[in-house]
C-alpha cells in the first residue's frame, strides 16, 4: 500500500500575504475548510487547485508543494 502526502508552505505563504483562511478561500473560490484541510495536511488538493494556489503566489507548484511518497510493502 502506498500513501501519498503533499507537504506545503500554504500556511506560511498565506500569512505572509496577510490573508485569513476565509479570505484566501474566497480568492480561490473554495471553502475555508478546504484551505484548512490542505494546510493541516489532511487533504491533498487536485492538480487544478494546486496550480491555482501556486499561480496565486506567483510561484511554481514545486515551490509551494513537496511530494512525499511513503511505501509500505507487505513482507512475504
Amino acid at each position, binding site marked *: 500500500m502506498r500513501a501519498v502526502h503533499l507537504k506545503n508552505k500554504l500556511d506560511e505563504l498565506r500569512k505572509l500575504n496577510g490573508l485569513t483562511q476565509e479570505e484566501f478561500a474566497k480568492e480561490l473560490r473554495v471553502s475555508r*475548510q478546504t484551505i484548512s484541510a490542505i494546510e493541516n495536511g489532511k*487533504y491533498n*488538493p487536485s492538480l487544478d487547485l494546486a496550480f491555482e494556489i501556486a499561480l496565486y503566489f506567483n510561484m511554481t507548484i514545486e515551490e509551494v508543494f513537496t511530494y512525499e511518497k511513503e511505501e509500505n510493502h507487505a513482507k512475504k
Partner: protein
Amino acid sequence: MQKSNLIYGLIYVIVAGIFLYAAIAFDNKMSGMLYGMTGALGGNGIFTIIRYFYWQKNKERYQEKVDIEEIEQNDELKQKLRDKAGKYTYWIGMLIVALSIMVYSVLGGLNIMDTEHIVAYLGAYLISQVFIGVIVFNHLLKKYD
C-alpha cells in the same frame, strides 16, 4: 432573484388551486391525496413568491448568498465528501433492504402477515440497484477509453 422563480411560484399556486377545486368538487377516495397536493404545491408556491419579493429588496445580500452557495456546491473537498457520503448511504440502504427482505420473509413464512408482494418488490429493487450501479459505472468508464 430571477423572475422565473416568481413565475414558478405563481404556477404552483394556480395548480394548487386546481387541485383544491378538484378535491372539493369530486369528493371521493382521491380527495385526501388532492388536498395533500394542494397543501404541498400551494405552500411551496406561496413561500417561493414571498422569497422572491424579500430578495428583491435585498439584492446585494442575495448575491452574496448565491456566491457562497456556488462556492460550497463546487468546492472539491465537499464534493469528494458528498460522493463518499453517497457511497456509504448506498451501502447502508442496500443492507437495510436485504435485512428487510429477511424480516418480511420470516413474517410471511410464519403467516403473521401477507408479505409476498413486499418481498418480491424489495428483491427486485435490490437486484435492480446492483445492475444499475454496474451499468452506470461502465458508462462512466467509457469516457476514459
